[in-house]
């Protein structure tokens, strides 16, 4: 499998060096794997920190900047970052107003962020944590690791980020982040598996003519495999899966998210179908975002995230943001 890399061992470090060169508004510590907004710590403001395995770019490093994250901690590809990274990040961004960890619900992420929170608190930093677990494909029961954190992570980071940027206190920022997570649901499909640099071949075998329904973002197979469907059919299936789990009373933010290898041409066409289904189901749409935001290396496919918003959450969504991956109002 051809990849635009040197060797697998240096993929993450190489990417961080490239990010540093492209984005002077970021402080990138390549050796210690922490990306920080250059103006941190920002006096009196709660600092948002997130992180996770590399391979989901722009998540999370591409969302560091005013209006969103204060710092991001990239792990090895598809591997949770280690506590040392988050502790270092917290020390770099805490202004005394405290830090909010935004943690995607994966065993590794939870364990490492929990350890980091304890260590940071030992150093006198106030740490709150919010879990993102929006994926409806995994039944949330006693018998699994719980629902995965996927597309809704973008909504949590942006909306809570706006609250932090306007000086809201830690308890409020945490509550808002939690509310966004509870209001959001996602469902993803894969048309192809992805290839990690270390493995060098697709993470699972998806035959031509078939697709995976209910995939996550780490190259693992989904819940079921079916014969290939049209964009219309996939939109019907995905939105149905979400609405089975959540009946929006409010308008929704819509994220039509590419997994990395699906062209924008296809994503926009898919969005047309998603909007059609929502209209048919009487769900009002407040705002829509289409593009590659929470990716899975070179997986072909897409996910849909719906997030119910009230006036306040919508105001925070619309608030200015200035990051490599999301920029408006500036």
């Amino acid at each position, binding site marked *: 499998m051809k990849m635009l890399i040197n060797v697998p061992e240096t993929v993450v470090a190489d990417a961080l060096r490239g990010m540093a060169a492209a984005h002077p508004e970021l402080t990138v510590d390549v050796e210690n794997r922490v990306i920080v907004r250059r103006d941190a710590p920002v006096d009196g403001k709660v600092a948002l920190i997130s992180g996770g395995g590399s391979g989901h770019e722009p998540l999370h490093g591409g969302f560091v900047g005013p209006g969103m994250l204060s710092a991001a901690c990239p792990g090895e590809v598809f591997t949770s970052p280690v506590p040392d990274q988050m502790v270092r990040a917290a020390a770099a961004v805490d202004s005394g107003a405290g830090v909010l960890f935004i943690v995607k619900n994966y065993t590794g992420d939870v364990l490492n962020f929990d350890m980091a929170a304890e260590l940071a608190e030992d150093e006198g930093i106030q740490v709150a944590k919010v879990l993102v677990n929006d994926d409806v494909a995994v039944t949330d029961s006693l018998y699994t690791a719980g629902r995965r954190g996927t597309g809704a992570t973008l909504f949590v980071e942006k909306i809570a980020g706006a609250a932090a940027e306007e000086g809201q206190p830690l308890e409020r920022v945490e509550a808002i982040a939690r509310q966004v997570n509870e209001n959001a649901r996602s469902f993803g499909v894969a048309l192809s598996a992805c290839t990690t640099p*270390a493995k060098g071949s697709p993470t699972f075998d998806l035959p031509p003519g078939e697709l995976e329904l209910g995939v996550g973002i780490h190259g693992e197979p989904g819940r079921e495999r079916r014969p290939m469907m049209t964009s219309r059919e996939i939109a019907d299936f995905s939105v149905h899966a979400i609405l089975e789990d959540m009946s929006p009373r409010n308008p929704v933010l819509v994220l039509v998210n590419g997994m990395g290898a699906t062209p924008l041409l296809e994503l926009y066409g898919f969005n047309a179908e998603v909007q059609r289904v929502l209209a048919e189901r009487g769900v009002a749409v407040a705002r829509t975002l289409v593009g590659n935001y929470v990716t899975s290396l070179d997986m072909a496919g897409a996910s849909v995230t719906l997030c119910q918003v009230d006036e306040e959450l919508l105001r925070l969504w619309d608030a200015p943001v200035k990051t490599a991956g999301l920029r408006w109002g500036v």
Partner: protein
Amino acid sequence: MLDADFFRRWMTATAAFVEREAERLTALDSPIGDADHGSNLLRGFRAVAATLEKEAPDTPGAVLTLAGRTLISTVGGASGPLYGTLLRRTGKALGDAGEVSEEQFAGALRAGVDAVMTLGGAASGDKTMIDTLVPAVDALDAGFGAARTAAEQGALATTPLQARKGRASYLGERSIGHQDPGATSASLLIAALVEAAGE
């Protein structure tokens, strides 16, 4: 009696086994995971071997707590905290004695396994490293060879199980029929005890 040297040999033997089996671990982690188990553990245990060489701790407890901390700082994922806690907790239970008996080691490793079960929330039958470690610790009284056999059988026995923890659990029934990568790497750790005691 087991001294610091024995425990250093245990860690370097584990590193050697992980190196040899890294591709296989990654292959096991593909159908029911995200294909990074082999490379993550390889990075971690290489770092452990290097750190132990450099710091040369002189008690069994110190060797294992340093190894555990090193894994936590280098592996990432769920494996880092879980294996790191296993070794740290075992090391703590060995105190600062210059050498320990096999009986003491068995008791300490049991404490380590209990700590992993508490941290990760897994029980026997969930298709995890616990399905290797619990039988191995139970068999330790009969010697390292018995523990190794029990560990290998434990890992094999994960194949028909449906995963209830970790990334494999997202797959539901599709996790059945695949040997668990974490259980497999745990059997390498246990097998390394024989290697360390061997010659």
